[in-house]
């Protein structure tokens, strides 16, 4: 897979996750986060298992272990996010969650895995853009929700770097299928602890089923398979950079399909300038002109 193909793949995942908002919004409020996780990952796991049944028969022990670690990280992210959202406004929570663009390079730096000057400068510019698009309230940060959202951010960075490591050694397809199975299972255990009647407690309407199926296909099955494939051929920083363009894509979607997003308030001069700054930051972080300049100076 070429770098260009890879970037297309990663960008399509960001589009999936940005547009998932439309369908998550259509879910009834009484559907718990664990029910959502179980249903979406369960359908995705079933679908992927049927499609790749043949490959699943040749799974290695190391792939199962790696998938288990990834699914535990995913579940932890969901749990922290749930706690964080209890005491933080959505805009503040979303801002802190998007700080993954800082935690990924920071972790990479600590792990000494090839962070460039462009990556670091680009990450700072992207954070500035995120400050503009999120529209958070500074005072609302002083709560325990901030700690939980920072944990989300850290866990996401660990997940990104772990996927990067695992996909280099394991089959990305099997990794994503087994990860999905484990996540569905852990989601079910949590759902059962919260609501013992689990599946029987849900009021199945056409709209709910439709949204669940769509989220299972795009935000789970497709996005995770594509993510594993994408990361096999690139590094964690590229993934974090492309993922950070999510507010830009959300903004574009809100402009093109405003009815699906419900309000026009998402699009204003401040959010537009934020989106431009994020896009600029992504270009800086994704290119290597600063590193080239530095090495040319050193050579001279």
């Amino acid at each position, binding site marked *: 897979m070429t770098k260009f193909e890879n970037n*297309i793949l990663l960008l399509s995942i960001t589009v999936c996750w940005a547009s998932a908002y439309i369908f998550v919004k259509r879910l009834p409020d009484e559907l718990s986060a664990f029910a959502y996780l179980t249903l979406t990952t369960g359908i995705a796991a079933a679908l992927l298992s049927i499609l790749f049944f043949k490959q699943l028969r040749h799974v290695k022990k190391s792939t199962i272990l790696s998938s288990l670690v990834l699914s535990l990280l995913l579940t932890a992210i969901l749990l922290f996010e749930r706690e964080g959202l209890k005491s933080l406004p959505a805009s503040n929570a979303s801002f802190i969650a998007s700080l993954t663009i800082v935690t990924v390079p920071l972790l990479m730096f600590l792990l000494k895995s090839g962070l460039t000057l462009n990556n670091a400068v680009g990450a700072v510019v992207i954070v500035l853009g995120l400050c503009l698009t999120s529209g958070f309230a500074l005072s609302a940060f002083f709560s325990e929700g901030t700690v939980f959202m920072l944990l989300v951010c850290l866990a996401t960075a660990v997940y990104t770097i772990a996927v990067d490591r695992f996909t280099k050694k394991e089959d990305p397809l099997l990794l994503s299928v087994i990860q999905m199975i484990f996540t569905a299972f852990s989601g079910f255990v949590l759902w059962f602890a919260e609501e013992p009647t689990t599946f029987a407690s849900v009021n199945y309407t*056409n709209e709910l089923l439709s949204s669940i199926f769509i989220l299972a296909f795009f935000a789970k099955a497709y996005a995770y398979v594509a993510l594993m*494939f994408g990361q096999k051929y690139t590094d964690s920083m590229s993934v974090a950079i492309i993922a950070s363009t999510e507010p830009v894509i959300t903004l574009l979607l809100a402009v093109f399909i405003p009815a699906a997003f419900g309000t026009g308030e998402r699009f204003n001069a401040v959010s537009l300038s934020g989106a431009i700054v994020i896009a600029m930051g992504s270009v800086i972080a994704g290119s290597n002109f600063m590193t080239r300049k530095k090495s040319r100076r050193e050579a001279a």
Partner: protein
Amino acid sequence: MIISRKKQFAITFAAFLVLGASFKVMTLIEGLTEVRPVNAIPPVAGLCFGPVGGLACGIGNLCADFFGELNWYSLLGMAANFIAAFLPYRLWHLFSNEAPNLHTKRNILLYLVISLINAFTTAWLLAFGLDVFFGMWIPTVYIYVFFNNFGFSALFGMPLLIILTSDSVRLQCEKRRRYMILGGERRMKWPLCAVYAGLMVTVLVFVFLGLSPGDAGWIHGVSAAAVLGLVCQLV
């Protein structure tokens, strides 16, 4: 990875049916069209599985209509979805000697151009088919179908093809088939396809100018010429 024809049909059919049915709730025009990410499937199914992929898309679309509104227009939808898969397959092999893949920028461009021509064709077939066979001229059908087809083919079709043709999957795509009309005259492909694209752009301009076939009957002449062009590419 080699997939038998039966499996090719089953996979494409199931994906088309489930996705098509899921999005029935996002209706744009009651009984006619909705937001359709499923439109990412036909070009990829066609490029990978050829006519089998086309057949699965056509029948899958017909069956998905059971979950929305099944009517006589569904037959038109079935034909349009078959062509939406089969045309990319024929066009790709007409302009490339490689098996379908997006490893080079030239191939990506080719895929995008084919998707564009495909979106033009599907939108024209459905909008003008409704007019000719059912006496219903609904320009928004053309606009929605065009954007659904091109948007989703580029947005999801392209990454899907990238995964299927990656080193890890290496899907064995359907081989080139003989071109009955263009077979001996391969150099004719450029002028023929250019004229066809020109006709499709004329239809697009016609719709966007707000004209209707009732007021401007000449568009039926353009449509008839486009049918000939389409047949030359498909057969």
